[in-house]
């Protein structure tokens, strides 16, 4: 069958986005020790990790390095695909690049010399930003991969985040699949009736967006009706999970302790120093 130009592209793009979203979901259904941990504990430890990594001085590089152990531990023990996560990190890297790329131009004071070559503060802070970016984004992706988006919403809720916020996120995640499928269908229907580039203008996109919006509103109405039918009265009640067990508390204590150690002591320097002393 002859398909109008370009239509396969758009459909496959929407479908691959869906697939990608679903893939993170699939990863979170595994059964590993890390997956079994309480999602609240994982969320808190990850937040502590993010805060500690961000809290360093802008020229810091060496002290950041030990923090790589946390995402490595999660990825390895939760059996997450490294290449897939790395690709995701690369996708968003332009944002971090944009933030750091001008540092080398503005900050040209040489602050360290390696093998006789002076390195400016700008380059050091640029690398520091990139390192922090890789650490934080990888860790957040690993958290989603080993916990699942919904469980993170629940954890936020249980930790006292406003319900409106966590429930919104939950619904967003639930219906993004439905909306994406609907969009893919509409776009496919349009492509099959567009010829010679006609029917592909911006105007059509406006109409499509409008009709999708109206469909969404209609669906929202039906969902609300479905909720009312089952006793909804403005407050979504969420089933309480069990309290954290020994494994959860151990995970929490060990990692928080390590983060404190990594934050206070320059571990690479200490190790380097003791190795040097041993050699001497």
């Amino acid at each position, binding site marked *: 069958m002859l398909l109008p130009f370009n239509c396969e592209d758009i459909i496959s793009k929407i479908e691959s986005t869906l697939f990608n979203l679903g893939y993170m979901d699939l990863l979170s259904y595994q059964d590993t020790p890390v997956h079994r941990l309480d999602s609240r504990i994982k969320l808190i430890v990850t937040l502590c990790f993010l805060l500690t990594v961000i809290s360093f001085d802008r020229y810091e590089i060496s002290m950041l390095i030990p923090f790589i152990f946390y995402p490595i531990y999660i990825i390895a023990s939760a059996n997450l695909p490294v290449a897939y996560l790395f690709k995701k990190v690369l996708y968003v890297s332009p944002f971090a690049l944009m933030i750091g790329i001008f540092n080398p131009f503005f900050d040209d004071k040489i602050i360290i010399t390696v093998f006789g070559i002076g390195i400016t503060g700008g380059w050091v802070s640029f690398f520091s930003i990139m390192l922090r970016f890789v650490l934080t984004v990888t860790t957040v992706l690993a958290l989603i991969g080993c916990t699942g988006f919904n469980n993170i919403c629940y954890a936020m809720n249980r930790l006292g985040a406003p319900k409106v916020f966590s429930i919104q996120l939950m619904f967003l995640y639930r219906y993004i699949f439905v909306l994406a499928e609907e969009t893919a269908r509409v776009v496919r229907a349009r492509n099959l009736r567009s010829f010679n580039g006609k029917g592909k203008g911006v105007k059509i996109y406006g109409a499509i967006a409008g009709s999708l919006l109206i469909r969404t509103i209609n669906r929202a109405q039906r969902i609300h009706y479905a909720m009312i039918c089952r*006793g909804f009265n403005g407050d979504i009640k969420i089933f309480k999970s069990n309290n954290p067990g020994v494994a959860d508390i151990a995970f929490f204590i060990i990692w928080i302790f390590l983060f404190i150690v990594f934050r206070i002591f320059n571990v690479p320097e200490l190790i380097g120093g003791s190795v040097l002393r041993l050699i001497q």
Partner: protein
Amino acid sequence: MSHHIIQSHGLCYTYPDGNKALREISFLITHGESVAIIGANGAGKSTLLMHLNGHIIPQTGTLRIGDYPVSKETAHHIRRSVGMVFQDSDDQLFMPTVFDDVAFGPLNLDFPHEEVEERVRKTLETVGVLHLINRPTHRLSGGEKRTVAIATVLSMTPDILVMDEPTSSLDPRSRRRLIELLKTFHHTKIIATHDLDMVFDLCERTIIMNEGAIIADGNSSDILNNKELLKKSGLEKPLRLQGCPVCGTEE
């Protein structure tokens, strides 16, 4: 057992745009009956269903569900005893996982958490999908979605099940499975549908609606064999009751 009776008397409803959706609807459905409501598109089936759990309040006439007349004040009680299964399961399954969705109703009824969990497991077992308990709802197949949607309603132990097109967009096997499942329920069932073969299997009584009015109400096998009546209402005989196109036998 008066609390499972559905009684409508002279029910009328006109939409704000002037469309007369229901005209003088009167019927009595007693406990344990399985009733099909059939009719062409726009005959008023959906409007009638929306009355049955108090989503639309009768404008004129009365509608009683069990001991309560349908009104704003009693809607809460009525929704407790009338379980509504939607045509599009995606509308019904709004929670992230099967467990949460089936637990939604019981939690709203303020059952203690241990009992909610037990109810969820028991209901899923009844409909035969306990293995899906932790699956996210958007990853289910069409047939699974429909089954879970029924479970979400059953977990509230309703007396009356109201279903809008339960077999639409299901493949033949899922459809057959659903029909067999529905056969095992002893609830009062009201099913709005175009699937007349299912009606033949499932409902002993059929109500035909046409342009907002009831034009026939009686034994399913009589009604489904009445070619003239069905034609008048924009319907056709169930395929099983039609002649065979291959061997050319007449009905």
